[in-house]
């Protein structure tokens, strides 16, 4: 099973601030090992599978190698040992912007097909998403796209619609960026 991790520029954890050791010329990166009990959001390395990618979008996308104990998380996997293998080439260059613009257009298409009473808020969010994509704010854009689709439903349906759109986004990344 391949697993991945999004990081801030410079191989840094976006929320933890942890600076990941990067692969050395001609050799792999050093392993990072968590001490103590693994706990979701509290202890251990958090990685994601291809189907979960869109929940964690950030500057750099890395393929990871993992080892040892694992804990199933929410949209993620918490592991005992991990190391960076290589940055995903498809997330370099214009890949993130293409993803964000495609996601925004997908949300706009769904909004265009929706009933008028639901469509206005969704269209506005999809326009925001497209603007953010063109400005290079990829994670903001993808979030706005998923929210736009969520707003097409009744309140009780919105979480499910949001997750479905995130799944669509993840599938796009897997297909186009990872080549899966």
């Amino acid at each position, binding site marked *: 099973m391949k697993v991945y991790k999004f990081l801030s520029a410079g191989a840094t954890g976006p929320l933890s601030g*942890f*600076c990941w050791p990067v692969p050395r010329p001609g050799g792999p990166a050093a392993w990072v090992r968590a001490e*103590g009990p693994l706990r979701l959001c509290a202890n251990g390395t958090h990685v994601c599978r291809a189907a979960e990618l869109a929940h964690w979008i950030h500057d750099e996308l890395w393929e990871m190698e993992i080892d040892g104990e694992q804990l199933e998380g929410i949209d993620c996997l918490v592991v005992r040992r991990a190391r960076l293998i290589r940055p995903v080439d498809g997330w370099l260059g214009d890949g993130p912007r293409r993803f964000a613009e495609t996601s925004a257009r997908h949300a706009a298409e769904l909004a265009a097909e929706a009933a008028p009473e639901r469509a206005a808020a969704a269209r506005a969010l999809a326009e925001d998403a497209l603007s953010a994509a063109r400005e290079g704010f990829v994670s903001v854009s993808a979030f706005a796209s998923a*929210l736009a689709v969520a707003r097409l439903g009744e309140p009780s349906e919105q979480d499910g619609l949001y997750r479905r759109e995130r799944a669509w986004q993840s599938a796009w990344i897997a297909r186009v960026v990872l080549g899966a």
Partner: protein
Amino acid sequence: MKSRSVVDLVCQEVVELVTEYLGQEMSPEDRVRMEQHLLACPPCTAHLAQVRATLALARELREDEPADAPGEGDLVASFRRWSRSGSGEGPR
């Protein structure tokens, strides 16, 4: 936060819940939703970083020290130490 969906979570709530988040007082479900919001919201992420740096600095102040305001150099040094930390226990 009562297991709010990420769809309903707004920035004002995130700001209000930052200390709860840093204090590990949230359920894992709520932490995941909050982190998913933070990753898509640069202003909330910046706020989190500021609160973290402030708390780290406050921890360094000993009770028996004069309550002088720290200088800019102290703040910067504290923030750098915080940003370099992360080995051993903790989320990554």
